[in-house]
């Protein structure tokens, strides 16, 4: 247990080992560790940022969705209104058309009837005249009594 040269040898070995460790072991290990710590920190930061971005995007989406829904509702509303209007317009036009056609029909019928009446009247007057002519062949001059026939025709 008495100290001897081993002590000196140990001291030298100690110094050499510490210097070697200081030069070749510690710096690369520490550099690797610190580099990785930086990487991890960057990664965490990036993920935080991404999360924030995502949140923002989601709120944007929600807002846009709301806008889009409102717009869609408006468009639908307008379309409905327009459809109603169209239907109403068409109905009205149909009605008008019908009225017009009916009126035309009436007018035509009226005209036809008038014409038929006229014809009938003419034929009746002609018949009457013919009848009267046959009855009064001998004693009445058709021309002299034509004013009476005219009168009769007008009365028909």
């Amino acid at each position: 247990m008495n100290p001897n040269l081993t002590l000196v040898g140990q001291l030298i070995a100690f110094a050499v080992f510490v210097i070697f460790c200081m030069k070749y072991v510690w710096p690369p290990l520490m550099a690797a560790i610190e580099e990785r710590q930086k990487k991890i920190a960057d990664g965490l930061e990036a993920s935080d940022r991404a999360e924030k971005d995502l949140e923002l995007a989601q709120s944007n989406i929600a807002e846009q969705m709301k806008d889009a829904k409102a717009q869609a509702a408006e468009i639908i509303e307008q379309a409905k209104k327009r459809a109603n209007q169209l239907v109403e317009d068409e109905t009205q036009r149909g009605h008008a058309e019908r009225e017009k056609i009916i009126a035309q029909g009436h007018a035509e019928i009226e005209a036809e009837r008038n014409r038929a009446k006229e014809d009938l009247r003419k034929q009746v007057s002609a018949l009457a005249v013919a009848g009267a002519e046959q009855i009064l062949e001998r004693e009445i001059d058709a021309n002299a009594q034509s004013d009476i026939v005219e009168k009769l025709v007008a009365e028909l």
Partner: protein
Amino acid sequence: MASGYEVKDYIGHHLTNATMCSTDNGIAFNEACADAGFFAIHLDSMGWSIGLGLVFLILFRSVAKKATTGVPGKMQAFVELVVEFVDDNVKSTFHGKSALIAPLSLTIFVWILLMNLMDLVPVDVIPKISGIIGEQFFGIDSHHVYNKAVPTTDINVTLGLALGVFVLILFYSLKMKGIGGFTKELTMQPFGHWAFIPVNFILETVTLLARPLSLALRLFGNLYASELIFILIASLGLAQLPLHFAWAVFHILVLPLQAFIFMMLTIVYLSLASEEH
């Protein structure tokens, strides 16, 4: 086992270092070096201690060389765990900036831990193998072949480490405070009056010298005692098995703790040396 010769001899054999010295008749070994005094060297202590130091450096260097900043492998993760453990302790204790303290602490911690861990190798294995090799290849009686495998049970080894730390304590004291500041610290504390200078000087010198001595003796005492008890247990015959197991389990705690204490105290001493009070 204590078969063939006395337990006392058995213990003595296990606690003797393989010694080499230079005498008038050339290089001599072991018993021939009994009165070589300071000029002898413990071959086993030096061999194991330098070998284990190389294990540490080669292992850590090989990891450091291919250290990746990406996902580390298992080995790198383990080495980084140790490095960060040491770095945390250094950063929490030593507040100055120094490129030396952290690698110094790492070296101290891992090297001492490795040397301490030799304590867990069954006490007979290495002396027995050494004895057989000595007998077979060198024709020496195995009772005269020594190999003490735990370097930290050699006061020379622990004192060598502590002296290294002591040199650094002096270096940092002088570097940070200058010769004047260091002298003032040695003479004007704890009593700040000129009349107390001799008293202060004695007190402060004792304090200063107690640091490396306590470092060396604490480590040596703990490891020597534990090794001695391992040997005593080993001399018990079959009863050694449970005892040996219990003692070894206990040392899973003690051995890293001693390495850690040596490292922490080194950091604390160097921190004290480089700070103004």
